[in-house]
Protein backbone atom coordinates (compact mmCIF):
# COMPACT_ATOMS: atom_id res chain seq x y z
CA UNK A 1 0.00 0.00 0.00
CA UNK A 2 1.42 3.37 -1.00
CA UNK A 3 0.88 5.95 1.71
CA UNK A 4 0.05 9.54 0.84
CA UNK A 5 3.48 10.56 2.10
CA UNK A 6 5.21 7.97 -0.14
CA UNK A 7 3.19 9.17 -3.10
CA UNK A 8 3.94 12.84 -2.48
CA UNK A 9 7.64 12.08 -2.12
CA UNK A 10 7.69 9.99 -5.31
CA UNK A 11 5.91 12.73 -7.25
CA UNK A 12 8.24 15.43 -5.91
CA UNK A 13 11.19 13.34 -7.14
CA UNK A 14 9.49 12.56 -10.44
CA UNK A 15 8.85 16.22 -11.24
CA UNK A 16 12.30 17.30 -10.08
CA UNK A 17 13.65 15.57 -13.20
CA UNK A 18 13.24 17.17 -16.59
CA UNK A 19 14.46 19.99 -18.78
CA UNK A 20 14.77 23.36 -17.07
CA UNK A 21 16.54 25.48 -19.66
CA UNK A 22 14.95 26.83 -22.78
CA UNK A 23 16.94 27.68 -25.90
CA UNK A 24 17.43 31.41 -26.39
CA UNK A 25 16.23 31.16 -29.97
CA UNK A 26 12.71 30.34 -28.76
CA UNK A 27 12.51 33.62 -26.86
CA UNK A 28 14.24 35.45 -29.71
CA UNK A 29 11.60 34.13 -32.10
CA UNK A 30 8.80 35.13 -29.75
CA UNK A 31 10.27 38.63 -29.37
CA UNK A 32 10.56 38.95 -33.15
CA UNK A 33 6.86 38.11 -33.44
CA UNK A 34 6.08 40.56 -30.65
CA UNK A 35 7.92 43.30 -32.56
CA UNK A 36 5.12 43.09 -35.10
CA UNK A 37 2.28 42.50 -32.65
CA UNK A 38 0.11 45.25 -31.25
CA UNK A 39 -1.09 45.12 -27.70
CA UNK A 40 -4.81 44.90 -27.14
CA UNK A 41 -6.72 47.95 -26.12
CA UNK A 42 -7.48 48.24 -22.42
CA UNK A 43 -11.07 49.03 -23.36
CA UNK A 44 -11.70 45.33 -23.79
CA UNK A 45 -12.78 42.82 -21.18
CA UNK A 46 -10.23 42.76 -18.35
CA UNK A 47 -8.45 39.52 -17.52
CA UNK A 48 -10.32 38.98 -14.27
CA UNK A 49 -13.68 38.72 -15.93
CA UNK A 50 -14.72 35.19 -16.77
CA UNK A 51 -18.04 36.01 -18.36
CA UNK A 52 -19.12 37.94 -21.40
CA UNK A 53 -22.03 40.33 -21.22
CA UNK A 54 -25.04 39.36 -23.34
CA UNK A 55 -24.40 42.12 -25.88
CA UNK A 56 -20.79 41.06 -26.39
CA UNK A 57 -21.88 37.43 -26.65
CA UNK A 58 -24.44 38.36 -29.33
CA UNK A 59 -21.83 40.37 -31.21
CA UNK A 60 -19.30 37.53 -31.04
CA UNK A 61 -21.87 34.99 -32.20
CA UNK A 62 -22.86 37.22 -35.11
CA UNK A 63 -19.23 37.73 -36.08
CA UNK A 64 -18.60 33.98 -35.90
CA UNK A 65 -21.58 33.25 -38.15
CA UNK A 66 -20.38 35.83 -40.67
CA UNK A 67 -16.84 34.39 -40.65
CA UNK A 68 -18.04 30.79 -41.01
CA UNK A 69 -20.44 31.72 -43.79
CA UNK A 70 -17.74 33.67 -45.56
CA UNK A 71 -15.27 30.83 -45.26
CA UNK A 72 -17.83 28.34 -46.54
CA UNK A 73 -18.61 30.51 -49.55
CA UNK A 74 -14.90 30.84 -50.28
CA UNK A 75 -14.19 27.13 -49.93
CA UNK A 76 -17.19 26.10 -52.01
CA UNK A 77 -16.60 28.64 -54.74
CA UNK A 78 -15.61 27.09 -58.10
CA UNK A 79 -12.22 28.78 -58.25
CA UNK A 80 -11.16 27.74 -54.77
CA UNK A 81 -8.15 25.44 -54.43
CA UNK A 82 -8.36 24.87 -50.70
CA UNK A 83 -10.94 22.09 -50.61
CA UNK A 84 -9.97 18.95 -48.76
CA UNK A 85 -7.78 20.12 -45.92
CA UNK A 86 -4.12 21.00 -45.93
CA UNK A 87 -2.44 20.99 -49.29
CA UNK A 88 0.41 18.64 -49.87
CA UNK A 89 2.84 19.22 -52.69
CA UNK A 90 4.72 16.01 -53.33
CA UNK A 91 6.84 17.51 -56.10
CA UNK A 92 8.10 20.87 -54.95
CA UNK A 93 9.25 23.30 -57.58
CA UNK A 94 12.81 24.47 -57.03
CA UNK A 95 13.33 28.19 -57.00
CA UNK A 96 16.14 29.84 -58.90
CA UNK A 97 18.27 30.77 -55.91
CA UNK A 98 18.24 29.24 -52.44
CA UNK A 99 15.91 30.85 -49.92
CA UNK A 100 17.01 31.94 -46.48
CA UNK A 101 16.40 29.24 -43.90
CA UNK A 102 14.41 30.72 -41.01
CA UNK A 103 14.63 29.16 -37.59
CA UNK A 104 11.63 27.61 -35.95
CA UNK A 105 8.92 28.76 -38.27
CA UNK A 106 6.97 28.04 -41.41
CA UNK A 107 9.16 27.86 -44.51
CA UNK A 108 8.02 29.11 -47.89
CA UNK A 109 8.08 26.52 -50.68
CA UNK A 110 11.40 26.54 -52.49
CA UNK A 111 14.99 25.45 -52.31
CA UNK A 112 17.09 25.99 -49.20
CA UNK A 113 20.84 25.73 -48.70
CA UNK A 114 21.69 25.65 -45.01
CA UNK A 115 24.17 24.24 -42.54
CA UNK A 116 21.34 24.05 -39.97
CA UNK A 117 23.13 24.13 -36.64
CA UNK A 118 26.27 22.41 -37.95
CA UNK A 119 29.49 24.05 -38.99
CA UNK A 120 29.41 26.04 -42.23
CA UNK A 121 31.51 23.53 -44.15
CA UNK A 122 28.48 21.24 -44.21
CA UNK A 123 25.83 22.65 -46.53
CA UNK A 124 22.58 20.78 -47.09
CA UNK A 125 20.51 21.80 -50.07
CA UNK A 126 16.92 20.61 -50.28
CA UNK A 127 13.62 21.65 -51.79
CA UNK A 128 10.41 21.94 -49.82
CA UNK A 129 6.78 22.11 -50.90
CA UNK A 130 3.93 23.69 -48.96
CA UNK A 131 3.57 23.42 -45.22
CA UNK A 132 7.08 22.58 -44.02
CA UNK A 133 8.44 24.16 -40.87
CA UNK A 134 11.99 24.46 -39.63
CA UNK A 135 13.39 22.96 -36.46
CA UNK A 136 16.98 22.79 -35.13
CA UNK A 137 18.31 19.99 -37.26
CA UNK A 138 15.23 18.98 -39.16
CA UNK A 139 12.26 20.15 -41.15
CA UNK A 140 8.80 18.71 -40.61
CA UNK A 141 5.39 18.90 -42.23
CA UNK A 142 1.93 18.43 -40.81
CA UNK A 143 3.04 16.55 -37.73
CA UNK A 144 3.60 13.20 -39.39
CA UNK A 145 6.75 13.51 -41.47
CA UNK A 146 10.15 15.00 -40.80
CA UNK A 147 13.64 15.03 -42.32
CA UNK A 148 16.68 15.46 -40.08
CA UNK A 149 20.18 16.28 -41.27
CA UNK A 150 23.20 15.55 -39.06
CA UNK A 151 26.77 14.30 -38.91
CA UNK A 152 27.26 11.13 -36.86
CA UNK A 153 29.99 10.88 -34.27
CA UNK A 154 29.07 7.56 -32.69
CA UNK A 155 26.23 5.10 -32.07
CA UNK A 156 25.27 3.97 -28.57
CA UNK A 157 25.55 0.28 -27.85
CA UNK A 158 23.15 0.77 -24.91
CA UNK A 159 21.00 3.81 -25.66
CA UNK A 160 19.34 3.99 -22.22
CA UNK A 161 22.67 4.52 -20.50
CA UNK A 162 24.15 6.14 -23.63
CA UNK A 163 27.08 3.75 -23.55
CA UNK A 164 29.24 4.24 -26.63
CA UNK A 165 31.16 1.70 -28.66
CA UNK A 166 34.08 2.38 -30.98
CA UNK A 167 33.33 5.33 -33.26
CA UNK A 168 32.14 4.13 -36.67
CA UNK A 169 34.56 4.69 -39.53
CA UNK A 170 32.36 3.76 -42.46
CA UNK A 171 28.71 3.75 -43.43
CA UNK A 172 28.74 -0.03 -42.94
CA UNK A 173 29.86 0.49 -39.32
CA UNK A 174 26.87 2.79 -38.76
CA UNK A 175 24.48 0.29 -40.32
CA UNK A 176 25.84 -2.56 -38.18
CA UNK A 177 25.59 -0.47 -35.00
CA UNK A 178 21.97 0.52 -35.76
CA UNK A 179 21.11 -3.11 -36.50
CA UNK A 180 22.29 -4.05 -33.01
CA UNK A 181 19.81 -1.80 -31.19
CA UNK A 182 16.87 -1.18 -33.54
CA UNK A 183 14.21 -3.27 -35.21
CA UNK A 184 15.13 -3.38 -38.88
CA UNK A 185 12.16 -3.00 -41.20
CA UNK A 186 14.14 -2.86 -44.44
CA UNK A 187 17.72 -4.12 -44.60
CA UNK A 188 20.54 -1.89 -45.71
CA UNK A 189 20.96 -1.25 -49.41
CA UNK A 190 22.92 1.11 -51.58
CA UNK A 191 21.31 4.32 -52.73
CA UNK A 192 22.21 7.81 -53.93
CA UNK A 193 21.67 11.11 -52.17
CA UNK A 194 22.29 13.82 -54.70
CA UNK A 195 25.49 12.75 -56.40
CA UNK A 196 26.80 10.74 -53.47
CA UNK A 197 26.70 7.06 -52.63
CA UNK A 198 24.80 6.24 -49.47
CA UNK A 199 23.65 3.27 -47.41
CA UNK A 200 19.94 3.22 -46.67
CA UNK A 201 18.03 1.24 -44.08
CA UNK A 202 14.66 1.49 -42.39
CA UNK A 203 14.14 0.88 -38.71
CA UNK A 204 11.90 1.48 -35.71
CA UNK A 205 12.64 1.53 -32.01
CA UNK A 206 10.81 -0.80 -29.65
CA UNK A 207 10.15 1.01 -26.37
CA UNK A 208 12.77 -0.29 -23.95
CA UNK A 209 11.96 -1.27 -20.40
CA UNK A 210 14.89 0.60 -18.92
CA UNK A 211 14.20 4.18 -19.94
CA UNK A 212 11.82 6.69 -21.43
CA UNK A 213 12.19 8.39 -24.81
CA UNK A 214 13.68 11.40 -23.04
CA UNK A 215 16.65 9.38 -21.86
CA UNK A 216 17.04 7.19 -24.93
CA UNK A 217 20.10 8.42 -26.82
CA UNK A 218 20.92 6.40 -29.91
CA UNK A 219 23.18 8.61 -31.99
CA UNK A 220 25.96 10.81 -30.64
CA UNK A 221 26.31 14.00 -32.62
CA UNK A 222 29.32 16.27 -32.85
CA UNK A 223 29.27 19.63 -31.14
CA UNK A 224 27.05 22.11 -32.92
CA UNK A 225 28.44 25.39 -34.11
CA UNK A 226 25.32 27.44 -34.04
CA UNK A 227 24.76 31.01 -34.88
CA UNK A 228 24.50 32.68 -31.47
CA UNK A 229 20.94 32.52 -30.26
CA UNK A 230 20.03 29.50 -32.34
CA UNK A 231 20.93 26.59 -30.13
CA UNK A 232 22.46 28.23 -27.10
CA UNK A 233 21.31 26.50 -23.99
CA UNK A 234 19.93 23.54 -25.85
CA UNK A 235 23.01 21.42 -25.42
CA UNK A 236 22.04 18.75 -27.79
CA UNK A 237 24.76 16.42 -28.86
CA UNK A 238 22.50 13.37 -28.79
CA UNK A 239 19.87 12.48 -31.33
CA UNK A 240 16.72 11.35 -29.57
CA UNK A 241 14.08 9.12 -31.11
CA UNK A 242 10.38 8.98 -30.43
CA UNK A 243 8.71 5.76 -29.48
CA UNK A 244 5.67 4.75 -27.53
CA UNK A 245 2.02 4.96 -28.45
CA UNK A 246 2.65 5.69 -32.12
CA UNK A 247 5.39 3.99 -34.09
CA UNK A 248 7.94 6.27 -35.70
CA UNK A 249 9.62 4.85 -38.79
CA UNK A 250 13.10 5.96 -39.79
CA UNK A 251 14.49 5.80 -43.31
CA UNK A 252 18.14 6.54 -42.65
CA UNK A 253 20.57 7.36 -45.43
CA UNK A 254 24.21 7.49 -44.35
CA UNK A 255 26.96 8.99 -46.48
CA UNK A 256 30.68 9.19 -46.18
CA UNK A 257 31.40 12.84 -46.81
CA UNK A 258 35.09 13.51 -46.69
CA UNK A 259 36.12 12.67 -43.18
CA UNK A 260 32.59 12.67 -41.82
CA UNK A 261 29.64 10.34 -41.73
CA UNK A 262 26.52 12.31 -42.48
CA UNK A 263 22.91 11.15 -42.09
CA UNK A 264 19.66 12.15 -43.73
CA UNK A 265 16.92 10.69 -41.55
CA UNK A 266 13.42 10.61 -43.04
CA UNK A 267 10.93 10.01 -40.22
CA UNK A 268 7.26 9.19 -40.57
CA UNK A 269 4.63 8.12 -38.09
CA UNK A 270 2.52 5.05 -38.68
CA UNK A 271 -0.49 7.27 -39.38
CA UNK A 272 1.24 9.32 -42.09
CA UNK A 273 -0.82 9.40 -45.27
CA UNK A 274 0.45 8.33 -48.69
CA UNK A 275 0.53 12.00 -49.71
CA UNK A 276 2.62 12.90 -46.67
CA UNK A 277 4.99 10.03 -47.40
CA UNK A 278 5.26 11.24 -50.98
CA UNK A 279 6.04 14.76 -49.81
CA UNK A 280 8.69 13.33 -47.49
CA UNK A 281 10.27 11.30 -50.27
CA UNK A 282 10.28 14.34 -52.55
CA UNK A 283 12.33 16.25 -50.01
CA UNK A 284 14.78 13.36 -49.59
CA UNK A 285 15.10 13.05 -53.37
CA UNK A 286 15.92 16.74 -53.59
CA UNK A 287 18.74 16.66 -51.04
CA UNK A 288 22.32 17.16 -52.00
CA UNK A 289 25.35 18.23 -50.10
CA UNK A 290 26.44 21.40 -51.76
CA UNK A 291 29.82 22.97 -52.05
CA UNK A 292 32.01 23.44 -50.21
CA UNK A 293 32.23 19.71 -49.67
CA UNK A 294 32.38 18.80 -46.06
CA UNK A 295 36.03 17.91 -45.92
CA UNK A 296 37.49 20.04 -43.20
CA UNK A 297 41.19 19.80 -42.48
CA UNK A 298 42.04 17.68 -39.47
CA UNK A 299 41.99 19.71 -36.30
CA UNK A 300 45.19 19.89 -34.24
CA UNK A 301 45.54 16.73 -32.23
CA UNK A 302 42.69 15.04 -34.04
Amino acid at each position, binding site marked *: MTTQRDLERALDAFFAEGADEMADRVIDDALRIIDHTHQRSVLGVPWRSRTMNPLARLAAATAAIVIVAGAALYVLSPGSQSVGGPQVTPSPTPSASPLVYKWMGLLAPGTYATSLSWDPSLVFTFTLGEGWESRDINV*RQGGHVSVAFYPIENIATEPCSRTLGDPPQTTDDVVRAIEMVATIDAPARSTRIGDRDASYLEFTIDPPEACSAMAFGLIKLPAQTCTPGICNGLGGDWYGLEFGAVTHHHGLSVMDVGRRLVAIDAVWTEDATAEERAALQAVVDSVHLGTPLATPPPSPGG
Partner: protein
Amino acid sequence: VDRDLVERAKSGDREAFAILARTRSDRLFGIAHRILRDIGRSEDAVQQTLVIAWRELPRLRDPDRFEAWICRLLVNACYLEARRARQWSANVRLLPTEGPAAPDATLSIADRDQLERGFRRLPPDQRAILVLRHYLGLEPAEIAETLGIPLGTARSRLHYAHRAMRAALEAVERSVAVGGGSRR
Protein backbone atom coordinates in the same frame (compact mmCIF):
# COMPACT_ATOMS: atom_id res chain seq x y z
CA VAL B 1 7.47 40.54 -9.35
CA ASP B 2 9.27 43.54 -10.77
CA ARG B 3 6.24 45.82 -10.69
CA ASP B 4 8.01 48.56 -12.60
CA LEU B 5 8.91 46.23 -15.48
CA VAL B 6 5.36 44.93 -15.68
CA GLU B 7 3.95 48.47 -15.67
CA ARG B 8 6.35 49.51 -18.42
CA ALA B 9 5.55 46.43 -20.49
CA LYS B 10 1.84 47.06 -19.97
CA SER B 11 2.23 50.48 -21.49
CA GLY B 12 3.95 49.09 -24.58
CA ASP B 13 7.66 49.00 -23.62
CA ARG B 14 9.03 46.07 -25.63
CA GLU B 15 12.40 46.13 -23.89
CA ALA B 16 10.76 45.78 -20.50
CA PHE B 17 8.73 42.86 -21.80
CA ALA B 18 11.85 41.25 -23.25
CA ILE B 19 13.47 41.35 -19.81
CA LEU B 20 10.38 39.83 -18.25
CA ALA B 21 10.30 37.13 -20.93
CA ARG B 22 13.97 36.23 -20.61
CA THR B 23 13.87 36.03 -16.84
CA ARG B 24 10.74 33.85 -16.80
CA SER B 25 11.35 31.64 -19.81
CA ASP B 26 13.25 28.82 -18.11
CA ARG B 27 10.63 28.52 -15.39
CA LEU B 28 7.80 28.57 -17.93
CA PHE B 29 9.61 25.99 -20.03
CA GLY B 30 10.17 23.78 -16.96
CA ILE B 31 6.43 23.82 -16.24
CA ALA B 32 5.47 23.20 -19.88
CA HIS B 33 7.94 20.39 -20.28
CA ARG B 34 6.66 18.59 -17.22
CA ILE B 35 3.08 18.85 -18.45
CA LEU B 36 3.71 18.01 -22.10
CA ARG B 37 6.79 15.72 -21.82
CA ASP B 38 8.08 16.98 -25.16
CA ILE B 39 10.71 19.64 -25.76
CA GLY B 40 9.43 20.89 -29.11
CA ARG B 41 5.85 21.23 -27.93
CA SER B 42 6.96 22.85 -24.69
CA GLU B 43 8.93 25.42 -26.66
CA ASP B 44 5.89 26.06 -28.82
CA ALA B 45 3.69 26.48 -25.73
CA VAL B 46 6.11 28.97 -24.16
CA GLN B 47 6.39 30.90 -27.40
CA GLN B 48 2.61 31.15 -27.71
CA THR B 49 2.38 32.19 -24.08
CA LEU B 50 4.87 35.01 -24.51
CA VAL B 51 3.12 36.36 -27.59
CA ILE B 52 -0.32 36.19 -25.93
CA ALA B 53 1.09 37.71 -22.74
CA TRP B 54 2.43 40.68 -24.69
CA ARG B 55 -0.84 41.17 -26.52
CA GLU B 56 -3.06 40.84 -23.46
CA LEU B 57 -0.82 42.53 -20.90
CA PRO B 58 -2.71 45.85 -20.91
CA ARG B 59 -5.70 43.96 -19.51
CA LEU B 60 -3.81 42.74 -16.46
CA ARG B 61 -5.17 44.99 -13.75
CA ASP B 62 -2.81 44.12 -10.91
CA PRO B 63 0.90 43.94 -11.89
CA ASP B 64 1.60 41.96 -8.71
CA ARG B 65 -0.46 39.15 -10.21
CA PHE B 66 1.82 38.87 -13.25
CA GLU B 67 3.39 35.54 -12.24
CA ALA B 68 0.08 33.79 -11.67
CA TRP B 69 -1.37 35.38 -14.79
CA ILE B 70 1.39 34.23 -17.14
CA CYS B 71 1.34 30.79 -15.53
CA ARG B 72 -2.36 30.54 -16.34
CA LEU B 73 -1.68 31.56 -19.94
CA LEU B 74 1.01 28.90 -20.13
CA VAL B 75 -1.22 26.16 -18.76
CA ASN B 76 -3.88 27.10 -21.31
CA ALA B 77 -1.25 26.98 -24.07
CA CYS B 78 -0.23 23.54 -22.81
CA TYR B 79 -3.85 22.37 -23.01
CA LEU B 80 -3.92 23.44 -26.66
CA GLU B 81 -0.60 21.76 -27.38
CA ALA B 82 -1.72 18.59 -25.62
CA ARG B 83 -4.80 18.43 -27.83
CA ARG B 84 -2.57 18.84 -30.86
CA ALA B 85 -0.27 16.18 -29.50
CA ARG B 86 -2.99 13.59 -29.91
CA GLN B 87 -2.27 13.65 -33.61
CA TRP B 88 1.33 12.79 -32.81
CA SER B 89 4.17 14.16 -34.78
CA ALA B 90 7.24 12.89 -36.49
CA ASN B 91 9.49 14.20 -33.80
CA VAL B 92 13.18 14.10 -33.48
CA ARG B 93 14.90 15.95 -30.74
CA LEU B 94 18.24 16.95 -29.48
CA LEU B 95 18.74 15.60 -26.01
CA PRO B 96 20.45 17.49 -23.21
CA THR B 97 24.23 17.22 -23.42
CA GLU B 98 24.72 16.06 -19.88
CA GLY B 99 22.94 12.80 -20.57
CA PRO B 100 20.33 11.11 -18.44
CA ALA B 101 19.94 12.66 -15.02
CA ALA B 102 21.45 10.69 -12.19
CA PRO B 103 18.76 8.40 -10.82
CA ASP B 104 17.05 9.91 -7.83
CA ALA B 105 17.61 7.79 -4.76
CA THR B 106 13.93 7.95 -3.90
CA LEU B 107 12.74 6.53 -7.23
CA SER B 108 13.52 3.20 -8.83
CA ILE B 109 13.56 2.84 -12.60
CA ALA B 110 10.36 0.82 -12.37
CA ASP B 111 8.67 3.51 -10.28
CA ARG B 112 9.76 6.25 -12.64
CA ASP B 113 8.62 4.30 -15.65
CA GLN B 114 5.23 3.59 -14.14
CA LEU B 115 4.82 7.19 -13.02
CA GLU B 116 5.68 8.31 -16.54
CA ARG B 117 3.13 5.95 -18.04
CA GLY B 118 0.52 6.88 -15.45
CA PHE B 119 1.15 10.58 -15.97
CA ARG B 120 0.87 10.35 -19.76
CA ARG B 121 -2.55 8.77 -19.35
CA LEU B 122 -3.87 11.73 -17.35
CA PRO B 123 -5.96 14.44 -19.01
CA PRO B 124 -4.14 17.77 -19.38
CA ASP B 125 -5.97 19.48 -16.52
CA GLN B 126 -4.89 16.80 -14.05
CA ARG B 127 -1.33 16.89 -15.41
CA ALA B 128 -1.21 20.64 -14.90
CA ILE B 129 -2.45 20.42 -11.36
CA LEU B 130 0.16 17.82 -10.41
CA VAL B 131 2.92 19.96 -11.92
CA LEU B 132 1.77 23.06 -10.04
CA ARG B 133 1.56 21.07 -6.81
CA HIS B 134 4.75 19.00 -7.01
CA TYR B 135 7.05 21.02 -9.28
CA LEU B 136 6.12 24.54 -8.18
CA GLY B 137 5.08 23.46 -4.68
CA LEU B 138 1.82 25.41 -4.74
CA GLU B 139 -0.91 24.76 -2.19
CA PRO B 140 -4.40 23.92 -3.49
CA ALA B 141 -5.64 27.45 -2.78
CA GLU B 142 -2.74 28.90 -4.79
CA ILE B 143 -3.38 26.41 -7.60
CA ALA B 144 -7.02 27.46 -7.69
CA GLU B 145 -6.02 31.11 -7.81
CA THR B 146 -3.44 30.51 -10.54
CA LEU B 147 -5.75 28.48 -12.75
CA GLY B 148 -8.80 30.60 -12.03
CA ILE B 149 -10.86 27.66 -10.81
CA PRO B 150 -12.80 27.13 -7.56
CA LEU B 151 -10.83 25.66 -4.66
CA GLY B 152 -13.11 22.62 -4.60
CA THR B 153 -12.37 21.91 -8.25
CA ALA B 154 -8.64 22.21 -7.64
CA ARG B 155 -8.85 19.80 -4.70
CA SER B 156 -10.99 17.38 -6.66
CA ARG B 157 -8.64 17.34 -9.68
CA LEU B 158 -5.67 16.88 -7.38
CA HIS B 159 -7.42 14.00 -5.64
CA TYR B 160 -8.17 12.19 -8.89
CA ALA B 161 -4.68 12.83 -10.25
CA HIS B 162 -3.13 11.48 -7.05
CA ARG B 163 -5.37 8.45 -7.21
CA ALA B 164 -4.25 7.68 -10.77
CA MET B 165 -0.59 8.09 -9.89
CA ARG B 166 -0.98 5.96 -6.77
CA ALA B 167 -2.49 3.22 -8.92
CA ALA B 168 0.50 3.47 -11.23
CA LEU B 169 2.93 3.04 -8.34
CA GLU B 170 0.95 0.19 -6.84
CA ALA B 171 1.03 -1.60 -10.18
CA VAL B 172 4.82 -1.74 -9.77
CA GLU B 173 4.47 -3.10 -6.23
CA ARG B 174 2.09 -5.80 -7.43
CA SER B 175 4.35 -6.84 -10.28
CA VAL B 176 7.35 -7.03 -7.94
CA ALA B 177 5.34 -9.10 -5.47
CA VAL B 178 4.17 -11.48 -8.22
CA GLY B 179 7.65 -11.72 -9.66
CA GLY B 180 9.15 -12.31 -6.22
CA GLY B 181 11.79 -9.66 -6.66
CA SER B 182 12.95 -7.32 -3.96
CA ARG B 183 12.19 -3.64 -3.98
CA ARG B 184 14.67 -1.06 -2.72
